[in-house]
């Protein structure tokens, strides 16, 4: 099925394009907009749509999508959880937290829980080293994490 945007998102798209001297520059923000409208992933239909809207080749858009880690090329769970694994967080116990989350959710890194609610991933440095360990859930940061704090968040996501 062809992909399309709601009228509201179409207006948002026009606003984004207006910020730049050419349409190509809107590629990344427009992909974000479309990804959000498409259940948080970029399908071939989305790539076609963006290519047509911005007058770009589909290959260019696909090249952009595959370069950046935050464009999902397959559907993730309803919520995305990223735990920072880089050194500052690792010094503060993120390695142990990652293992804990895998057990608690019954998934390996990169996988989605059976009920489709949570995709568990690691992130590279989230720029929150002074409040390590840190995780990002969708758009929100959770800092100074403990296993108890992680459990509270995961339970909420799983029981939603």
């Amino acid at each position: 099925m062809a992909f399309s945007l709601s009228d509201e998102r179409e207006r948002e798209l026009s606003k984004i394009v207006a910020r730049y001297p050419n349409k190509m520059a809107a590629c990344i923000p427009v992909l974000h907009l479309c990804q959000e409208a498409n259940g948080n992933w970029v399908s071939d239909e989305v790539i076609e749509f963006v290519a047509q809207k911005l007058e770009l080749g589909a290959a260019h858009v696909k090249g952009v999508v595959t370069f950046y880690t935050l464009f999902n090329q397959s559907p993730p769970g309803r919520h995305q959880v990223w735990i920072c694994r880089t050194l500052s967080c690792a010094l503060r116990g993120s390695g142990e937290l990652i293992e804990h989350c895998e057990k608690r959710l019954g998934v390996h890194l990169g996988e989605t829980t059976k009920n489709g609610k949570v995709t568990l991933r690691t992130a590279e440095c989230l720029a929150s080293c002074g409040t390590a360990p840190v995780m990002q859930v969708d758009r929100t940061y959770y800092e100074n994490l403990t296993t108890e704090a992680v459990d509270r968040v995961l339970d909420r996501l799983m029981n939603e």
Partner: protein
Amino acid sequence: MLKRTDYLTKNYSAPDSWSIALYERDGGYRSAEKAFGIPREALVDEIKKAHIRGRGGAGFDCGTKMSFMPKESKKPHYLVINGDEGEPGTFKDRSIMEKNPHSLIEGCIIGAYAIGAHVAYIYVRDELHLSKARLEQAIVEARAKGYLGDRPFGRGYGVEVHVHTGAGAYICGEETALLNSLEGRRGEPRIKPPFPAQSGAFGCPTTVNNVETIALLPTALAMGGDTFSQLSLLHSFNDGGARIFGLSGHVKKPGLYECAVGLTLRELIYDLGGGVLGDRKMIGVIPGGSSCPVHLPDEIVNVKDPRFEPFNGKSILDLPLGVDTFRLAGSMLGTCCAMVLSDAVDPVLAIQNLMQFYKHESCGQCTPCREGCGWIVRILDKIVEGKGTMEELDRVHEIANDITGNTICAFGDGAAQPALAFVKRYRKNFEDYILRGGRSQTGRLSL
């Protein structure tokens, strides 16, 4: 020399620190208004006098970079702000964007006028949703007040500021990769020359500056460039003003500390950070983001330069943190956000962790970096598993040296230097893994 300042961080703990009301109560936007009364070249000269060394890691002088912009040009000029903060250990720009966004917006107005630009793009990494929201709100507030738009402060020089989002790629913190990403391309660094001042965003003259660098412009202008520079102990090194120092890892009070330039690592870790967690022994410190070499606490400074007289013979922990002091001492200041490793840390696991980061973030454009980072990780994995050989340990050296200087951008060096520094300083720990299966190592990173 420990001298706390609060030019950027004064209101960080206020519940509405990001509001324009609070920012203006402390004199906000008066510097931007003042700037429009100064001819462009004189303004750049004033910024030069402030000796603001780029806060993003390279430490290039802000005013000098602005002076590279063409005086006359038929093409539009652009100011691009690098808010792609992602260097492991670094978390200062995020705090400015979240808690003091107006300092950056005002800095953008001053900076745009100084380089002859009418448009500024703030490139923010996608993960920082709160930063983006606060900046967007700050732009709306500033426009409503008449500080942005066609006629800021009633003058005829229009300035627009836009927030641009990335999509998860550390390499986009490299200025030419950032420009490609801004243009809607894959974030692969460009070959220089041409430098951005000749051909940057959209093929037009562009200045790319770090968030903190630009956010300091209002303060520098309010005080006068020279007065601002002299806040620093390293004024004689042309390294002026104050900056935000970060501290993370095994310390009692990790966080951000704004101080005059010239603070030492010892002051940062012990006086401000309260010392090492659990009063353990410190085995190493990475001075300013993971691309800087790790240092042992007992390393002695010895530099043949008359300005180093007060520091020679002392520990590196007592060398003032400055762009040139650390460069001349064979280190790197980077982003000035230090990471502390206590004796609970297994240094072999620490560099394994960091090299996994570099392997993941290499853009893949240059073979030495793309393959080399992966090879180093593979060797480190083998060593940690107890299957490594001494020959392979030496090969880490060889690979890192082959990456250095052989890539389009500085990422390659930034990945190779930490590997070299860890192997050089903790060679015994690596050998222990190879010869004795790592029996005497902690096997841990956390306490």
